């Protein structure tokens, strides 16, 4: 999106015509306020104006399913073969052999340090009684990953080499990553047949975008000299691609491989909702249904360990220099001998029937029971305190954001009524504040204050649709140019016309509330971690765990602490979305150039001045990417948060799923994706402006 900003105004440049735009929006807001009762459609979009898109989609899919089913079923069966084969091999091999094979791979990829980590992790999986489930999961991932990689490579080449690819791939990739899988599960089941194949395909769809992005980035950044050299030595375009450009882009492509593996793994749990496969995700889900926190935590840790093993090994391969052989690792020769020895060991163990997996581990069970008991005790002892914490956040944070101050200040929430004179003084204060801020820091900031005050009064769900759409479209236009403005208008228009507006605003509210808190929390931890290596070392594995553990696991304790409702959902979303805020903040701060800091010290800046006036502004672009990611993650969690009783688009997707209503599912899923993309476009354009500002 950076390309179309150049000839538009940045936020910091004074452009008189944009003042008029904002004033028009304020006028519209005033009209909505005054004529709310006489022209109600300005505030609340009337139901009989909805476009029945969901019904049309249903008619289309019924038709399409009938035609495509033979083909898709065939593909489904074809994919099932390697997966079942891999599954049987993994189940057949005695677990000690598998553990040693992983150790060998770790040694080959990096060295003894990684071997220790991998062996400990796989020993846990073997001894906790989840070996069978873990191997089934591995079979799924083992086929999903190559599939996504191949798909990603193909699409990546297409995206980097053709004009049409450059144009249409980015939005398609965005959709692949932001439409919740649940939204299209039903048609997938019909098309590909019941069972793990659907999970496989869903994983592949979700996991291939990082590969596409990295492949096309890698290919585009191959130096022109290399291409020229290839052309001069007379290679065909095929040779040039596969023998010259792809090897030259290998570094970037390997980053993509690593990200794709992690994304595929994170989809495992979603795949298990369909069932048909006794995998580790199913185990987590069924213990969650029984609300057995201890058991689901132990099973969830298995997924974390699988993720750690796969991440570290693939990252080690990615970081290894392709030309030089492994540094301290034994030679290729030795590895062949070791592999041979493993095969012999496998035969011996099989012959004596040693090494069949443990089905149930007593030690794991007693830990689980202990955890369950402690959780009960904790809730019993601190229940009242927990309830007061929840009430505080609910009354003073969530409720005002949702329904606005106009509805949330009541005797039984804030302890007093929001009377007429108080409302008027709120309005007067806001106007004065806006003017004050505007005169001191420029009119843009003053307008910002006015708009925030307006939204705070009406709340996310109470604000008139016309004002919301006008504000966001204009904002998009201001920061990202005409293209961004039109995208925002189109996206929000789609949501409005298909009748998803009210649900979408509930989702926006919950996501926004969570993103604000995640970012504040994550950024503070990131600042701390950037200044302290010990903190950084502690925070990193915690971040890894939160990114890979199925979050269903944390729903149970949060539910027991805070009961059903939006506060619990808020915490669940925060638990997932705070990680990128930490990572990008720490990264941004650590990468501020030391020379600049030296200059600042020489000029006699105090530490607090250095932080606020040098480091933070320089780290801001990176932090904005972090905020952007936080918002994306929050949207991704919305569907899971619906399991604890939220009412937005997430719930709608579940309802569509149970009702087998493909159209409704797809429309809600698309609405969610469009919301996420709207936030993404605006933020990215804004961050790009800041980058441009830093360069100049």
């Amino acid at each position, binding site marked *: 999106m950076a390309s179309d900003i150049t000839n538009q105004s940045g936020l910091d440049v004074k452009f008189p015509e944009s003042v008029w735009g904002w004033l028009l929006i304020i006028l519209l807001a005033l009209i909505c306020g005054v004529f709310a009762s006489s022209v109600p459609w300005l505030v609340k979009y009337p139901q009989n104006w909805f476009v029945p898109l969901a019904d049309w989609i249903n008619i289309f899919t019924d038709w399409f399913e009938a035609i495509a089913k033979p083909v898709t079923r065939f593909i489904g069966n074809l994919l099932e073969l390697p997966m079942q084969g891999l599954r049987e091999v993994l189940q057949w091999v005695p677990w000690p052999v598998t553990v040693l094979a992983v150790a060998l791979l770790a040694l080959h990829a990096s060295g003894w340090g990684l071997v220790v980590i991998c062996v400990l992790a796989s020993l846990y999986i073997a001894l906790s009684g989840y070996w069978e489930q873990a191997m089934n999961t591995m079979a799924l991932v083992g086929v999903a990953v190559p599939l996504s990689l191949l798909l990603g490579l193909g699409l990546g080449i297409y995206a980097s080499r053709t004009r049409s690819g450059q144009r249409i791939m980015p939005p398609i990739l965005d959709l692949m990553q932001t439409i919740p899988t649940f939204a299209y*599960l*039903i048609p997938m*089941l*019909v098309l590909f*047949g*019941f*069972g793990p194949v659907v999970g496989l395909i869903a994983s592949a769809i979700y996991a291939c975008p990082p590969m596409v992005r990295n492949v096309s980035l890698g290919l585009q950044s191959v130096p022109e000299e290399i291409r020229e050299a290839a052309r001069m030595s007379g290679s065909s375009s095929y040779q040039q691609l596969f023998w010259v450009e792809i090897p030259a882009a290998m570094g970037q492509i390997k980053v993509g491989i690593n990200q794709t593996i992690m994304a595929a793994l994170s989809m495992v749990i979603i795949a298990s*909702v*369909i*069932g*048909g*496969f*006794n995998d580790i995700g*199913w185990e987590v*889900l*069924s213990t*969650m*249904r*029984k*609300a057995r926190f201890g058991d689901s935590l132990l099973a969830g840790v298995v997924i974390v360990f699988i993720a750690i093993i796969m991440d570290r090994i693939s990252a080690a391969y990615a970081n290894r220099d392709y030309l030089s052989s492994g540094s301290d690792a034994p030679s290729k020769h030795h590895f062949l001998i070791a592999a041979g020895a493993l095969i012999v060991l496998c035969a011996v163990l099989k012959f004596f029937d040693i090494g069949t997996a443990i*089905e*149930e581990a007593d030690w794991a*069970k007693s830990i689980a*029971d202990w955890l369950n008991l402690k959780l*009960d*005790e904790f*809730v*019993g002892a601190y*229940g*009242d305190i927990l*309830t007061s914490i*929840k009430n505080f956040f*609910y*009354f003073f944070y969530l409720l005002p954001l949702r329904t606005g101050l106009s509805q949330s200040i009541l005797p*039984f*929430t804030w302890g007093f009524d929001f009377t007429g004179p108080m409302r008027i003084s709120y309005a007067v204060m806001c106007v004065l504040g806006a003017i004050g801020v505007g005169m001191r820091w420029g009119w843009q900031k003053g307008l910002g204050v006015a708009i925030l005050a307006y939204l705070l009064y009406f709340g996310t769900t109470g604000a008139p649709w016309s004002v919301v759409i006008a504000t966001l479209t204009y904002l998009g236009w201001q920061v990202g140019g005409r293209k961004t403005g039109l995208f925002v208008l189109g996206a929000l228009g789609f949501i409005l016309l298909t009748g998803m507006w009210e649900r979408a605003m509930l989702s926006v509210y919950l996501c926004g509330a969570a993103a604000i808190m995640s970012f504040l929390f994550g950024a503070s931890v990131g600042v701390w971690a950037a200044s302290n290596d010990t903190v950084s070392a502690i925070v990193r594995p915690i971040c890894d765990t939160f990114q890979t553990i199925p979050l*269903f696991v944390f*729903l*149970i304790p949060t*539910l*027991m*602490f805070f*009961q*059903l*409702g*939006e506060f619990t959902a808020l915490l669940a979303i925060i638990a997932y979305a705070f990680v990128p805020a930490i990572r990008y903040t720490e990264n941004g701060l650590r990468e501020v150039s030391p020379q600049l800091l030296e200059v600042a010290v020489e000029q006699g800046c105090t530490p607090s001045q250095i932080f606020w006036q040098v480091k933070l502004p320089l780290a801001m672009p990176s932090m904005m990417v972090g905020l952007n990611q936080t918002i994306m993650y929050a949207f991704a969690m919305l569907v899971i948060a*619906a*399991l*604890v*009783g*939220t*009412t937005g688009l997430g*719930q709608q997707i*579940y*309802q569509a*799923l*149970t*009702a*087998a*209503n493909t159209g409704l599912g797809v429309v809600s899923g698309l609405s969610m994706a469009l919301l996420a993309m709207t936030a993404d476009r605006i933020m990215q354009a804004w961050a790009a402006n800041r980058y441009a500002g830093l360069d100049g």
Partner: protein
Amino acid sequence: MFKKTMTAALLSLTLGLPAAYAAEMGAKDETIKLTINEWTGQHISAHIAGETLKKAGYKVEYVTAGYDSQFTAIADGELHGTMEVWSSNAPDLWKKMSEAGKVVDIGDTGLKAREGIVYPIHVKEICPGLPAWEALKECAGKFATAETLPQGRLIDYPADWGTPGADRMKGLKLPFKAVPAGSEGALISEMKASIAKKSPLLIVFWQPHWALSKYKTEWVDLPKAEDACFSDPKWGVNPDDVNDCDFAPARVFKVVWSGFEKKWPAAHVILKNVSIPTEDQQNMMAEIDQDGGKLEKVIETWMASNEAKWKPWIEASK
């Protein structure tokens, strides 16, 4: 055809089974796949049915499958039967596939199912008038939370299961706000937390469920349900609205693929006859979920000591 029957007869002779079944066994070398859904009671029903089929000489496989999504597979004959479909919470896919004639209802599972509004026993101290439903009018305030103030809070089924709790509260004009639970895990977490904290709780629930055998609970006494209650507003305590009564009794039934009878005639008769006593299921559920027993072991024990119950199902197929 004759040859095939003869081979089957010979085979069953060598396996030591009465030859009399052979003619009706059907494709007994092809595995019958029964579904395993998300709750323990269903696992028990599926295993009892499956183990009985095994005793009769069939190959059986248990496949984990979502309660809703399983019907796409059963309709296509990829999976072959499911042992617990609840009429109160029947997936729309079931209705769709059954109307299309792809899946068949083969009768009750035998469970005495009940749905209603439940509270843990300690709640009686908070609202002494219980279990009479009228007491809730006075007590509503005690069930209030931040989200529902000033109304009381009722935990309803997840929204995708329907909103029976909200319907009741409206029908009976009780000052309660129904909060949808989102998932079964959420319902149980609510119950666990309430018992741990001794806090007030009113929740829509069903039986047989292991939680009701594990925790001491009672049902709220609502006016007895009649058909008229759901169609005629004038019926019952509230003359202006329907749903002013208890839940209609739920039916739990077995469903198989429409091609099942043709492919495995004897197995079809056996499954039709399978009937699982509510008490047995609830006891086994407690053994598994409460005492941590292994499903296969628990089923094995039941099969060994209840021959009198399952033998007749096989006899009937002769």
